[in-house]
């Protein structure tokens, strides 16, 4: 028992020492990069939305939003497929993960990665390994909000 406690103490001391030694990421440059890229992605989205409304003046604004999202998702999947999106992500961090393009990337990248395991066991099964938690929490959150909405 004593030995066990000793090891625990040693491990805690070692973890403290390592934590102090680990090189830290610089917050300001990372924040700047992610706001820059995230902002550019949003501007592109707005541009697509405006173009759609310009070309199809009779379209309802809400359907234009849906088409904008589809176009953005396609662009991100395409960039993932040709191996560009991970390079953007390396630079931008959260800036390219938070917009819907990041979601698209998180589904396309495992699909590309696991294509050698076959369509069903590879692509279909592995496709949601990263995006799965996002979808689950989205469904759960909408359920809770729906219940609250029912009573007020």
């Amino acid at each position, binding site marked *: 028992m004593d030995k066990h406690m000793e090891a625990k103490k040693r491990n805690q001391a070692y973890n403290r020492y390592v934590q102090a030694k680990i090189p830290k*990421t610089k917050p300001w440059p990372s924040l700047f990069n992610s706001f820059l890229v995230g902002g550019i992605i949003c501007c592109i989205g707005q541009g697509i939305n405006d173009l759609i409304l310009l070309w199809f003046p009779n379209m309802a604004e809400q359907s234009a939003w849906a088409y904008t999202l589809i176009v953005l998702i396609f662009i991100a999947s395409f960039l*993932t497929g040709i191996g560009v999106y991970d390079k953007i992500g390396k630079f931008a961090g959260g800036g390219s993960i938070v917009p819907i393009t990041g979601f698209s*990337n998180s589904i396309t990248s495992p699909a590309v990665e696991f294509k050698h395991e076959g369509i069903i066991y590879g692509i279909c099964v592995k496709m949601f390994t990263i995006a799965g938690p996002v979808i689950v929490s989205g469904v759960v959150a909408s359920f809770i909000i729906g219940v609250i909405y029912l009573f007020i």
Partner: protein
Amino acid sequence: MYTNQTVIFKNKPVIIGSYSIVGPKEGKGNFGQYFNYVMKDDSFGEKSYEKAEMKMLKTAIVGAIEDAKIKASDVNLLLAGDLLNQIISSSYAARDFDFAFLGLFGACSTMAESMAIAGSIIDGKEFDTIVCSTGSHFSTAERQFRFPLELGNQRPPTSQWTVTGAGACVISSKGKGPRLTMATFGKVVDFGINDVNDMGAAMAPAAMDTMLAHFRDTKTTPDDYDLIVTGDLGKLGSEILIDLMEDQGIKLGLNYNDCGQMYYTRNQNTLSGGSGCGCSATVLNSYIIKKLRTGEYKKVLFMPTGALMSTTASQQGETIPGVCHAIVLECDESVKDVKISTTSNRNVKNTPSKKSERTSISQKNQGHINN
């Protein structure tokens, strides 16, 4: 209190052949000129990266046998291992060879593990010729342990880059070449690190444990070696090891370095350095063995470390245990008296104490390898 962990080989098995094969990124790294073969692309003409890793191992084994100038039928046993589940690269590569196979898993320490076992078997005169091999591939390791390649995420500064490469060597009871004189088998050591992106910190205590056992069992000091080299502790891990050893009263000087730390150039964006079985295997089978053959290094302590983690265990909240095996390689008698001026780091007794000095020295060492 202590058990003896070291085997001293009386018959001194000889490394008669070695071969290393690496990926294009590794070919551009600091050891580029020493490798036997640099692949043009990561897939090596295969459909998947797993298949490429198997082919790399096969190429390395064939290359080492050719380098040793023996026939494949002379080989008694193949000792090999890798990082993938069920060590598929090694066992699938072994099905194309007509000799007995023992699969090993020591994570990134597999090269020393296999050579230590091979040395013991040959020293006991049970078998005559044994091939040791290991390798790793960046893309297969990423997909097994981390995220898909195309996912746009950032890597933390402590993370390391898995080396795409395989190395193999042939160890025999007779012949000419560097000799295997001692081997220290390591214990599994766990200091409670659970960050899977910080392998250096998880493995440094294992390296310390084996190093202490080695110096204690063999009654040697760091100054007895021209080069003490760990496998893939990386920049952070090797600094931690220096600190840990200092706490134990042993100062690691100019002759200490880490393969992972030296592997890539500063511009290759690998953060804390190289890792994986291939990291120590390719450096040993190219740079270190070549320098031992010419007599530039007389005595080398090679001690790669392995993090024995699995994604399942990590997700269940387990910490990461590490293991480290050490082997001592000495140059052949015939080149023992060769004096080469570049071995300036031999017998350096004064260890610099300031950290800044240390880093500048390791940079200098990198430069020295570059030339």
